[in-house]
């Protein structure tokens, strides 16, 4: 079956401004958008640039905008995209390096601000710290985040203000603040309890819709807001 792709192209070395280029290729049943991009890159246009690695929905490399929605190219089956031309663009809100490749450094810098690591001040036991399955359940979903950036770059608050920590960083904060073993909750909450943190979330739910791992990010941000309001630390 033939399908048309309208792909965002921009090479700052030679293009004065971005443009879209159309490719029509024969696709096979079961192909994902990543399969199509690979095909185009390998057989049609070797200058096309995009990121990809695991092609099994876990490394987070290939997040991009497909038909107006942030998704992982490797997870998006072409047959789920209707019949028309498929439009492929980079994630919005981040500087473009080339074609679908955006600069993820601002995203990771925001992550670093929330102390995205386990903090423990009390002495550690010789063996493991105990954690019941119920305690673990609180953070299980949040710990599944693959840092693909689909959520943060779908958020209008982030588009308007790149200093906003964004859903991914807040989710990471949640993952540690609600970890029964962690002792850095209070200092982390102080960081995110800020107008560029928790309070820039207006519950638009774009992040939750964009998340390729189906994590209910807005829900966790709301739980953090509750915690901040009730000042439980």
């Amino acid at each position, binding site marked *: 079956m033939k399908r048309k792709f309208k792909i965002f192209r921009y090479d700052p*070395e030679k293009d004065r401004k971005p443009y879209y280029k159309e490719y029509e290729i024969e696709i096979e049943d*079961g192909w994902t958008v990543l399969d199509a991009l690979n095909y185009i890159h390998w057989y049609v246009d070797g*200058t096309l640039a995009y990121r990809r690695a*695991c092609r*099994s929905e*876990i490394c987070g490399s290939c997040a991009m905008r497909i038909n107006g929605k942030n998704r992982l190219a490797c997870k998006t089956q072409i047959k789920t995209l209707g019949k028309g031309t498929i439009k492929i663009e980079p994630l919005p809100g981040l500087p473009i390096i080339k074609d679908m490749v955006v600069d993820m450094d601002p995203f990771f810098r925001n992550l670093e601000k929330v102390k995205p*690591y386990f903090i423990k001040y009390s002495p550690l036991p010789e*063996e493991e710290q105990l954690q019941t399955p119920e305690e673990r359940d609180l953070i299980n979903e949040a710990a599944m985040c*693959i*840092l693909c950036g689909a959520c943060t770059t779908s958020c209008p608050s982030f588009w308007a203000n790149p200093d906003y920590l964004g859903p991914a960083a807040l989710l990471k904060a949640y993952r540690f603040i609600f970890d029964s073993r962690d002792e850095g909750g209070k200092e982390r909450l102080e960081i995110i309890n800020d107008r560029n943190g928790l309070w820039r979330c207006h519950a638009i739910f774009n992040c939750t819709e964009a998340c390729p791992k189906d994590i209910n990010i807005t829900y966790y941000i709301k739980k953090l807001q509750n915690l901040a309001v009730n000042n439980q630390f």
Partner: protein
Amino acid sequence: MQIEKYYHKSDALVVGTGLAGLRAALALADAGIDTITISKVYPTRSHSVAAQGGIAAAIAHASDDSTELHMWDTVKGSDFLGDQDAIEMFVNEAIKTVYEMEHMGVVFSRMPDGRIAQRRFGGHSRPRAVYAADYTGHVLLHTLFEQCIKKKVRFFNEFFVLKLVLRDDGVVSGVIAWDIRNGGLHIFNAKATLFATGGFGRAFKITSNSFTNTGDGLALVLREGLPIEDLEFVQFHPTGLYRLGILVTEGARGEGGYLLNGKGERFMERYAPERMELAPRDVVARAEQTEINEGRGIDGKDYVYLDLRHLGAEKIKERLPQIRELAMNFLGVDPIEEPIPIQPTAHYQMGGIPTTKRGEVLGDGKTEIIPGFYAAGEAACVSIHGANRLGTNSQQEAITMGRISGQAMAEFVKKAALFPIPKEAVEEAEAHVRKYLEGKGSVRPFELREKLHEIMTGKVGIFRNEKDLSQAVKEIRELEEEIHHIHVEDKGMKFNLDLQEALETENLLVFSEVIAAGALNRRESRGAHYRVDYPKRDDENWLKHTLAWKTPEGVRFDYKPVVITKYQPQERKY
């Protein structure tokens, strides 16, 4: 064309940011050593992230396990090619590694009393796999990344290493890399360099491996005239999603999944009556391929079924959520309702850069330590896995050996001097990229790769024979000639994926010849290496490690003895 050059100095350099690389970087940072990591990708994209089932350690939470049993299972699993001194150290350190990772916050799955849970895995006689549902690699890798952020490790992400700098005096003093994002050569000068560059699965057509797993470290080492150990041992994982090769964790069988052939039989009964589906991977992959070759695949085709239906919806959702998602999305099959079509998939390299038990690279493969050069993880060969790795031993090896190597490097660096990088090395690296950026060939990188895939999967796969292997060696050598006629369409500096693929393709060809020639050379069957013309293990002639060098005339071999301490080789039955 102008190619800019940038110079960096650090005490330690870590190439590769999977589990081994990040754990080493953390050990170095903990010791107060200024450390740079270099990776082709952002650290969390490294292929360790795709590891699913678990990490082995005899913490004995779910059984009467012991380090002795873990050692015996690993030795037997290796088909007696693993070095027993290394394995003994490994099984003891493994316990420490699990608790240490837990102390860094890893969300391991738990038992009702709050202790770490364990599950069964192939070739392990006890439930020994510590896990986090079926995304264990993901949580381990992210946790190490987080700790490296905390310790302010300096990350150089999206850099492609072009050259290992091995000086004439035999000292390694860094690497030269291409900046994928912006173009340009970056010269990284360091007192010590660690290669944690991962595996080579992308040499094969059907593989569980990420696009990034092109065995770059192996090629860089071979190019410097150094040997590689035991590369003929390639692990084919028994359960790759049909046609795609995407991994379905062995944990699915650990939780009780069955393998069924086209007649609906649990065919493992005939191959491993005791362990059944939980025999080691070499045994199960061969059994599957035999069923397929003899016409007992599903509808006579080239796949069999992994059946999880009897586990029930609740267990599948709790313990194997990622597997369910992958099967539904890629094959349209919900494992709660239907069996999953699977086939063997190229998964792991048992061989690699020969090292000591401290991760020091051996220049002659035997005893001669190269000052300033270390290797760890899948890229290295200690050898813990011998001829066949047990599931969950690789994540364990990556982290444990990453830590040990990092600590060894830290000690070294404190006493070592910084040796400069010779300008000839820089010129060589520059010529290497210019060859592609300025070349006017006609062969596309992917054409060569596809040819290589056919050769490797068709002739250097699960079942091997003299005729196919000699043909494969010849054909790979012909492809190595073709690389000089490659056409890189993209001539730009910025994120030039075409250039990267050309460089990777050349790397694939460099070491693939070593795999095929090693398999041709080893006239016996042991672990994952199976010769239909020599179907028996031959301890008299082949209880030894292969060391292989690239020469213009072909691959040159030497050997070294296996370290045997506690367990004499015996017949391997499951």
